[in-house]
């Protein structure tokens, strides 16, 4: 875990995780034990899953490029095998959250050099507010606990992923 990031998360929310995370979870956007061979493929797959929740005109490629652009400014690999690729998007009316777990970790160029096998993909509206920032911070904080992260990676279904996150917020 990047201590610097941790610092910010500590100051950004009070409860963990807040209701926004639970509200944003959508079983259709949670894919477990996928076969993905690289960071690049992971972003493509994430764009595909996120796009499936947007209106029909939205092009997968546009979402992919939005994720790439953000990644260029700073790697979203937070360490401990977790990445949180995200972006503002004119295509997102509300926050859209997808979760992908990977059968085999991929090199994500994270600061701790650990391969990523759990990715949270997040799109927020162009005028993203504090609650979106908190959502990101909640995910990062939740996943800074290695045992919780391991449980999510091992989850066998989308429903199980949701149940786990629900259990941590009660």
């Amino acid at each position, binding site marked *: 875990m990047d201590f610097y990031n941790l610092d910010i998360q500590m100051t950004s929310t009070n409860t963990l995780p807040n209701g926004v995370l639970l509200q944003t979870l959508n079983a259709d956007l949670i894919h477990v034990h996928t076969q993905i061979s*690289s960071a*690049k493929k992971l972003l493509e797959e994430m764009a595909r899953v996120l796009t499936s929740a947007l209106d029909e005109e939205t092009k997968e490629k546009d979402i992919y490029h939005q994720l790439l652009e953000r990644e260029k*400014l700073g790697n979203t690999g937070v360490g401990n095998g977790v990445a949180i690729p995200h972006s503002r998007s004119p295509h997102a009316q509300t926050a859209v959250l997808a979760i992908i777990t990977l059968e085999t970790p991929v090199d994500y160029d994270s600061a701790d050099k650990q391969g990523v096998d759990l990715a949270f993909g997040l799109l927020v509206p162009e005028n993203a507010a504090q609650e979106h920032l908190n959502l990101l911070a909640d995910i990062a904080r939740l996943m800074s606990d290695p045992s919780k992260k391991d449980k999510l990676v091992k989850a066998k279904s989308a429903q199980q992923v949701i149940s786990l996150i629900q259990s941590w917020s009660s």
Partner: protein
Amino acid sequence: MKILILGASQVGVSIAEVLVGEENDVTIVDVNSDVLQQLQNRLDIRTVTGSAAHPSVLRAAGAEDASLILAVTNNDQVNLVACQIAETFFSTPTKIARLRSKEYLNNPELFSREGGFSVDVVISPEKIVRDHITRLIEFPGALQVLDFADGLVQLVGVKAVAGGALINCQLEELKEHMPNTETRVAAIYREHEVITPKSDTIIKEKDEVFFVAARENIRAVMKEMRGQSDKTKRIFIAGGGNIGLDLARELERKGYSVKLIEFNPKRAEKIAEAVGNTIVLKGDAADAGLLLQENIEAADVFCAVTEKDEINILSANLAKQLGAKRVMALVNKPAYVEHLEHRDIDTIISPRIATIGSVLAHIRRGDVVAVHSLRRGRAEAIEAIAHGDANSSKVIGKGVREIPFPAGTGVGAIVRDGEVIIPNVNTIIEPEDHVIIFMDNKSCIADVEALFQVAVTFI
């Protein structure tokens, strides 16, 4: 990062060497399996034999997973097609193509987002080399002149000579010497050893001093380091290939008087038609008789840019002996470059070193917009843009002194809204600042990159 290099050309191989050294996962594609075999014995890379312009070959080379494709075969068309395939079949995030022909270079609409070839970055080593030489000629006495922020800021390497007003002065006195000229000394090399500049560091004769300043101030600083300001008027160019011809046209346009020597009579005639005031001479650039007859002793600069390293080295040496003030030689072979430094030739121009930065800018993490490799790749200077705010950035809202830059790195300049700022330790970095950083040791790069990456909470 997974990187696919198409073409085991000189540029391709030297970039591969740098990238492998930085822990990237590199695959090289070439039609020549012997060349690939040799490379594989030497470098930790994967190789695939075949045409880079074929989807099946790119797929076999792992294009599905590659974050960057570098198309640097010797064939422009192959490079263009390879990038197009990479986009169509593999949605490759970054596609860089090396192009030579002006038919492509002069028609940027070919690469427009709508309907053009899917090339994100076009690099033209010949143009890079031409611009590199032109900048050196414009600043007589400079060992190196590198552009940042589209040329607003330059990093210049210069040899301090006796008579320069700054010699034997402490760096903190710089300001007194030049009250109206803002500059920052980024590094000093003394007998090949780097000295990290401090306020009490004294510049000595023969030091190689690298300083950063706004372009309009470069001349003033150089004068302080070198005493008399040198003037350049008469230039000899040896070799009328693409680089030689382009260089002649560029220099004559800027008002220099140019003589160009070309060995091949037919080529010489063709060049003579393509230039304006340049005098085209048919003959051997390493022929002392010819050089003397053409008053080489009056030449301010002799620049050898033929296709052959050996001729460039030989003729540059000869020109120096015959009295040319400053001689430069284009040298491709890495071993030669290594051996020739600090010999009679004032400046060795290595196309691969000059070119590599334009590729590295796309590999560096964070929003790095310019990279220049220095000291044969041991040092590096970068221009990075600070994004985010005081919460999401490790540099914004902080004074330069507060930022935990690794030892051996320093902020040379900041460009804010087009204005050049030479920072002091208290200068605060603001969002969207372009920050120019010098690193005397490449091992600091990862730490500097980390400083300029926004935190994960940045949306």
